[in-house]
């Protein structure tokens, strides 16, 4: 395989409207609906699907361990289950990569990647994802995804002389984009003042800087490049991954600031761009969908993906770049700050990027027809980084 060669094609996509609660649906219901949607979108018959992967993490939200034993029963290709992939919130991209590899290796012809989460199954999401930490050491101090993001945001503000208003532009942009996304959970635009005056959660993170608690689901049907419809062709051309240590302190060595400057994501991006034959992403990428549960993570992702120089993302965002009408839109769907079902959130990035590349994103379609997209996901407390490149 040479750089830039298509690995596999996205044949079909589906997602459900994101909501805080979906009391009318079980986990299995959600999976069934998106499976049906992706297969219909691809225009194939259910029996033509011969492989299935589940992106699912963490299972504590559902209270069901190994939920594929329950949730996939009766679905197309459930008798050809290829595995559950768990990379925390980055699971969707990791599972998509494995599905593409199964197809490219000829070991399956069409693989369905599914993901769903019901955030209302537990009274406290923070408690459910508390399994991120070691019960004997880390849970003794208040290091959560929120406090870790607060550290990142404070460090970014200090390093680049940015204030809270500078950092709020990304949320204003995303919430405005979310208004036009019929699947978004938060569809109300917010102002800069509303963001900076919203209640602090862990300074400088405020309530409106953060993604909501979300239930939702997504599915992507992966197939051979030859099976893609020419007019709707979207192919995967590159993937990269990078893991780092769980403990921030474990990496506090001179010269290593991966959790504070986006350079860990940059390592994953380096691999994906090399595989996809992308030299200068700032000019080669036309649209980006990145998982960012807090505004600061989108800014670090923009820099880590080399779509902006280090320290430039907040300033350029404030200047109006990365909007839907700009040369390089980032999260034209509104991103995870408008809705983020943890297990499905990275797969939704692929769904959204595919819709943009096909020109089927409706009211949220970017102004310039894109030819190449980058998708990114970060799992754990900024430990697991997944990047993919899609193009027409």
């Amino acid at each position, binding site marked *: 395989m040479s750089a830039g060669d298509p690995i596999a094609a996205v044949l079909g996509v589906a997602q459900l409207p994101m909501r805080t609660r979906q009391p009318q649906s079980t986990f299995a219901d959600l999976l069934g609906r998106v499976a049906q949607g992706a297969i219909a979108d691809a225009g194939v018959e259910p029996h033509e699907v011969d492989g299935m992967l589940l992106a699912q993490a963490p299972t504590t939200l559902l209270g069901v361990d190994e939920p594929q*034993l*329950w949730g996939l029963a009766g679905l197309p290709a459930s008798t050809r289950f290829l*595995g559950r992939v768990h990379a*925390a919130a980055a699971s969707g991209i*990791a599972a998509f990569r*494995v599905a593409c590899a199964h197809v490219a290796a000829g070991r399956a012809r069409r693989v369905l990647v599914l993901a769903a989460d019901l955030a209302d199954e537990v009274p406290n999401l923070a408690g459910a994802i508390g399994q991120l930490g070691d019960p004997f050491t880390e849970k003794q101090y208040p290091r959560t995804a929120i406090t870790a993001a607060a550290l990142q945001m404070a460090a970014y503000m200090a390093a680049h002389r940015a204030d809270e208003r500078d950092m709020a532009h990304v949320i204003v942009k995303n919430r405005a984009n979310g208004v036009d996304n019929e699947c978004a959970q938060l569809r109300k635009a917010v102002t800069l003042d509303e963001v900076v005056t919203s209640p602090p959660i862990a300074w400088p993170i405020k309530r409106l800087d953060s993604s909501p608690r979300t239930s939702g689901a997504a599915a992507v049907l992966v197939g051979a490049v030859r099976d893609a419809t020419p007019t709707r062709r979207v192919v995967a051309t590159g993937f990269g991954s990078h893991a780092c240590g769980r403990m921030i302190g474990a990496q506090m060595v001179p010269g290593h600031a991966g959790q504070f400057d986006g350079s860990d994501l940059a390592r994953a991006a380096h691999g994906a761009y090399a*595989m996809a034959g992308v030299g200068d992403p700032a000019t080669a990428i036309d649209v980006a969908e990145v998982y960012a549960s807090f505004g600061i993570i989108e800014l670090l992702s923009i820099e880590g993906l080399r779509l902006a120089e280090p320290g430039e993302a907040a300033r350029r965002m404030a200047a109006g770049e990365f909007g839907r009408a700009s040369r390089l839109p980032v999260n034209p769907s509104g991103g995870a700050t408008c809705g983020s079902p943890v297990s499905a959130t990275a797969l939704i990035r692929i769904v959204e990027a595919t819709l943009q590349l096909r020109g089927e994103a409706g009211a949220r379609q970017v102004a310039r027809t894109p030819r190449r997209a980058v998708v990114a996901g970060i799992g754990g407390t900024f430990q697991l980084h997944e990047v993919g490149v899609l193009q027409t």
Partner: protein
Amino acid sequence: MLKPVCIAGAASRVSPRLRGTLESVIHATVGQAVDAAGLRGVDEVDMVVTVASDVLDGIMVPPRSEIAASAGRQYLDVPSSAGHAIAAATVLLETGQLERVLLVGWGEGHKLADHDSRAIQADPFHARPLGAVPAAMAALQAQRLLAEGRHSDDALEAYVALMHRRTAGDATDPVVTGSPPAARGVPQGLRTRWVDGVAAVVLTTAAHPVRLVDVATASRGYWPEDGELDPAQWIREAVRPHDTTPRPVARAADLLEVGATTPVCELHAIDAFRDDAMAFRDPAVNASGGGAAACFGPATGLLRLIAAATTLRAGGAGRPASATVADLVGPIGQQVTVLRLERSGA
């Protein structure tokens, strides 16, 4: 053009209770596997793939995967089964996205002997209220399989005894003896001997004596919706050619390694490959003792891969040249992966 995938090196530790912390045992096992693969160090690995249970340790596996050397590398966690993890690594290697993958699996299975947390795998609305815990599911499967009469109670008892002897007698898997308290009063065929285990395998696209030539899967839900409970049928379904593609896994192999969670499932799974009801007495069948005799959860299948690869690697005239490994995970073994290994040049 697909790249060949070879098994470059492996290591494992199995015992009733791990000596030392889980982290230290994983560290030692990974180091040993990397050495066995002839690598200068773990930095030569492109990707780490883990297979282990979040629930068993009360902490998510991916965030703590640095204990398996993931930090600084590409990373993937496939907790559903060793077979699924091997399949994912294989296709990523075959398609040239990676050159070396380190598979690491672990589980402190003794915790399941004390309290079977797998009970929360069942459908919470229908199965759990009926008490469909793994032990009940396995008992229903055993009733069905034994009623078919392919194997007698005596044969099953002989199978369990032989697998225990083979496991205890394996120098690489020391001190696996006795039955856990939870097994008292449980019929032989349903006794899973829960142990603690760690296994690490290096897969590579570089030439090595043992090649992984095929991977096939089949699966069912917690309670199979088609009513099929025979693991041999699931294996036949996995290896059946599809799209007119020949499946190397469907050919007879010199060696057979089959692992499931219960002995009764494991014994009936062997039927997919051998007609003889007493085939398990053949030293080429489950020479390592099978999965139920020393089980540490979804990663246990890595031991079957290691056992088959080790025998094939020994080589020599008249020695086995091919092996089939079947990994059956889940309360009734309903997540099936079948692998075909061949000795290069054989």
